[in-house]
């Protein structure tokens, strides 16, 4: 028999109070974790996507900035073109270390010729590429040959082997990239040669042929020379080459960052309101409980309980309930985010990558701390008030 035993007996003996306090702790903990997971997950995704592209500047046709962001981040297929001549103009800038073209395509929607519907396809030039090629080398894989592809983490062959049908053409999935939580995870990377081969054979093999405009590319990835200023280079490109928009990697996904900031503000606002309401509700519940248990606590004092014991007893109850409610809420949040990640991404329109186990644990602990802090904060004043009261007064009222 001790303080914890008495506290747990009181908890089990009052279902309503226990339920309300645990529910509030659950809400506070899970909301906090949900917000941090979502925001950090989105931020991580953006960072990884930029790292994956490996470019200091991405040049796209003027007006296509939003399309490329949607394609790279959310996997929304995009088609936009510019003349291949632009590549040589860009490569001629003295501060450009390397410039590599990319061509963006998409599979057909609901067509039997494509085993994956509406998939974003990125064609690259193996001779100049610095997005996929270094990754292949790092993973000791050969340069992609004709008909070979590399998939994002979610690209898999449906036949149980390695083959994926694209416009009636069988490509071989050679490897999958690590997850980024962005549209890149649902994209397929292949060489220009493979893309042109698919296009030429799709005339006979597909329901609709793959059409690639002659001498066209969708984007140019630029790596600036070490020591040069990518911003000045971007300004120079903008001023020199008409009809294109250079996007610095630091400015890439700017619209998503703004959307994220907006969403973060909304979520933080809702969370703050929820937190204040929860603490107020908890304060009310604890005040009512302390009031309802005045006599009981007065009796405890008469039996020899110190003020400190009464105070600790009330806070121990609060802590146990906060721990139980908070832990349940956090476990549910993690489970929901893992199970419904794709639905959440679609709903919020943001990329998302689950953090590492260590980072997740840290965020869970922060959520648990917030739940414990909130519940104890609400219980503090009633516990102090009741523990300071004369036992006789407490028992009389």
């Amino acid at each position, binding site marked *: 028999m001790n303080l914890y035993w008495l506290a747990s007996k009181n908890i089990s003996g009052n279902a309503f109070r226990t339920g309300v306090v645990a529910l509030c702790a659950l809400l506070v903990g899970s909301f906090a974790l949900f917000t941090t997971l979502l925001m950090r997950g989105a931020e991580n995704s953006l960072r990884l996507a930029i790292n994956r592209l490996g470019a200091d500047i991405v040049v796209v046709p003027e007006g296509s900035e939003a399309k490329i962001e949607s394609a790279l981040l959310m996997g929304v297929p995009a088609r936009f073109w510019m003349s291949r001549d632009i590549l040589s103009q860009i490569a001629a800038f003295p501060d450009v270390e390397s410039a590599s073209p990319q061509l963006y395509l998409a599979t057909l929607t609901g067509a039997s010729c494509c085993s994956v519907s509406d998939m974003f396809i990125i064609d690259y030039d193996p001779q100049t590429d610095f997005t996929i090629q270094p990754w292949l080398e790092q993973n000791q894989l050969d340069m992609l040959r004709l008909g070979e592809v590399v998939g994002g983490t979610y690209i898999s062959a449906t036949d149980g082997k390695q083959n994926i049908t694209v416009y009636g053409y069988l490509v071989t999935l050679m490897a999958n990239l690590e997850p980024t939580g962005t549209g890149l995870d649902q994209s397929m990377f292949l060489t220009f040669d493979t893309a042109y081969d698919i296009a030429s054979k799709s005339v006979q093999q597909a329901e609709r042929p793959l059409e690639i405009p002659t001498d066209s590319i969708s984007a140019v990835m630029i790596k600036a020379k070490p020591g040069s200023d990518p911003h000045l280079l971007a300004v120079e490109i903008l001023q020199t080459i008409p009809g294109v928009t250079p996007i610095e990697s630091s400015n890439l996904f700017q619209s998503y960052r703004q959307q994220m900031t907006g969403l973060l503000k909304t979520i933080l606002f809702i969370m703050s309101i929820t937190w204040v309401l929860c603490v107020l509700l908890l304060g009310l519940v604890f005040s009512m409980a302390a009031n309802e248990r005045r006599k009981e606590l007065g009796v405890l*004092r*008469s039996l*020899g309980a110190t003020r400190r014991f009464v105070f600790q007893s009330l806070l121990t109850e609060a802590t146990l309930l906060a721990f139980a409610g908070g832990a349940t809420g956090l476990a549910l949040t993690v489970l929901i985010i893992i199970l419904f990640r794709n639905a959440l991404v679609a709903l919020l329109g943001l990329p998302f990558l689950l953090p590492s186990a260590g980072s997740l644990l840290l965020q869970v602990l922060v959520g648990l701390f917030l739940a414990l802090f909130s519940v104890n904060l609400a219980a503090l004043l009633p516990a102090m008030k009741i523990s300071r009261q004369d036992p006789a007064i407490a028992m009389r009222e």
Partner: protein
Amino acid sequence: MITLQEVTKTYSLGKGSSVTAVREVSLEIQPCEFVIVVGRSGSGKTTLLNLVGALTRPTSGSVMLDGVNLWELTDPQQSLLRSQKMGFAFQFPSLLPTLTALENVRLPSIFGKKQDSSAIEDRAVQLMQKVGLEDKLSSYPRQLSAGQQQRVVIARALMNQPEVLLADEPTSNLDEKTELEIMELFRDLHRNMGITMVMVTHTRQLISYGTRAIEMANGQIIKNGS
């Protein structure tokens, strides 16, 4: 020995008004006495009992137990003294509803001297036997009658082997037969265990159970004698 010297207790009612429940009362209670305090409602008898039990601070005067001024002690010292030297039985149902009868009896052991848990268990069971409820050890307060609950309260009050038992109208909610049973139990405890007892009641017929009777009116002792 319990000594009250010129003790006054005034309750503040807020907005500048107050009521004096006990007015300049001086009293001595010798060890092993069974003092019964009678008086009408509002006469100050419950406040007097609370003052004796250090459950409320006197507005003026001093309350001493064995020469120690209770209100010169710190809260932990005062609580320890209550736990080791005093037992309480109240008018209202004072058992903790979430604990069984046996757990309620064991409860004061949390605050007393450290004891072996099996010794605590044995003593609690013995006390339950003493009050005739050995078959109700696992019953919760709601499963017991008012008389049975009051017996459990008495067993709880005796758990830490107190020197003084303070009872505030312990039979007021009981029927006549149960009231007499409880009073017989008090008399038995007083005679066989040598406990000093102070009991407050508004029933004058119960005076015969005590060794001394005190009558109060308007916060003052108006009669004090055997």
